[in-house]
């Protein structure tokens, strides 16, 4: 790959075919990197079946107080932008699930009563599928935010072509993912609900100044609200992928359609070439 380029595959909602598109694009990309950013429920590995090379526990820092040193001055709790600290009867109360690990409280504490204690947030997996480097991270159950896991994953972008399988929705995780993308491929369903969620994620990528195009997935002969949205809002339609029972069957057993069908291998190779051309033009 001549150029360093990172493509994020996004959807605005779950179940549009984001992972199916991402893994098949990655499978035809040759020497590239695939990153599964759906840290709440990563599933790209089910299709790519990577040979695992390493696991790394990702930690985040949370404050702990030494009550012998804390005098309840409230400097930390007044400064905390997330209101993760409160002071009652000169005693500091810490709310770790509200804390965003910014570190301001340790920096400001005049008594040196606060220390940063690492806590496990999840695991980052590195592996490979033929020439494709495969990365994924899985957040521990019950954690409020996987953003630090996505930041950790993004440190592994080595250059060349990177395909990111984005998290669903258009919240914090998606925002963090888009930050690192050069081009966003939005995968949309032909439903009113699909159209609403496509609009949300399209607005987000536009706000963040990222070039984007839509892939209309599961199309039928019926009117497609997502297609109508794209046409009315200047969102380029890069491709359509008609509903196909065989594609659904192959995908539902965790296989790559590009490894079972020459026609689909050709389809995804052409799609990848078109995306790269669009991304380089943008």
């Amino acid at each position, binding site marked *: 790959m001549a150029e360093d380029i990172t493509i994020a595959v996004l959807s605005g909602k779950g179940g549009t075919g984001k992972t199916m598109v991402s893994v098949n694009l990655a499978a035809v990309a040759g020497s590239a990197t695939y990153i599964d950013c759906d840290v709440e429920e990563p599933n790209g590995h089910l299709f790519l079946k990577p040979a695992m090379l390493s696991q790394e526990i990702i930690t985040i820092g949370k404050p702990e107080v030494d009550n012998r040193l804390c005098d309840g001055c409230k400097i930390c*709790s007044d400064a905390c932008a*997330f*209101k*993760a600290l*409160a*002071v*009652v*009867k000169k*005693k500091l*109360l810490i*709310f770790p*699930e*509200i804390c965003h690990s910014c570190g301001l409280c340790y920096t400001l504490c005049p008594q040196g009563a606060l220390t940063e204690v690492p806590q496990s947030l999840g695991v980052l997996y590195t592996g490979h599928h033929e020439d494709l480097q495969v990365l994924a991270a899985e957040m521990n159950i019950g954690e*409020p*935010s996987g953003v630090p896991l996505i930041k950790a994953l993004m440190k592994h972008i080595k250059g060349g072509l990177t395909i990111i399988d984005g998290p669903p929705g258009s*919240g*914090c*995780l998606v925002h963090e993912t888009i930050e690192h993308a050069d081009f966003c491929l939005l995968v949309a369903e032909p439903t009113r609900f699909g159209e609403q969620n496509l609009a949300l994620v399209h607005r987000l990528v536009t706000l963040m100044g990222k070039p984007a195009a839509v892939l209309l997935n599961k199309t039928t002969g019926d009117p497609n609200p997502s297609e109508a949205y794209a046409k009315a809002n200047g969102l380029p339609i890069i491709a359509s992928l008609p509903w196909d029972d065989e594609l659904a069957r192959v995908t539902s057993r965790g296989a790559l359609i590009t490894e079972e069908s020459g026609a689909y291998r050709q389809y995804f190779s052409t799609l990848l070439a078109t995306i790269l051309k669009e991304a380089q033009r943008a």
Partner: protein
Amino acid sequence: MIIAVPAENQSLDSAICQSFGRAPFFCIYDTESESSRFIDNSAKEASGGAGIEAAQLLVDQNVDALITYRIGENAARVLKAAQTTLLKAVNLSIADNVANFLEGKLPSLDEIHSGYHHG
């Protein structure tokens, strides 16, 4: 004794706000002087941690009791550390709730919800 009540408007005739952390105002009622005042809730538009901030605000006002429809677990932890009495509001004005409280008619608030957090 100082009582706090989440208020929709700055009036004793106002309804009690359904939300604790995001109430626009708090009524601070002093039972000794039988006087009331209203303070802005600085937490009402917080992106997160509104319950904690609102609870800190009341603790700093030396409130002894809070009359509210509901409260989240984080706010409750702050108020309980300050030994604030939590009471369940009835569907009447602030003034009527205070009157009910003074007659000992308000039950204690035992239901603590887990908050309305988002990612």
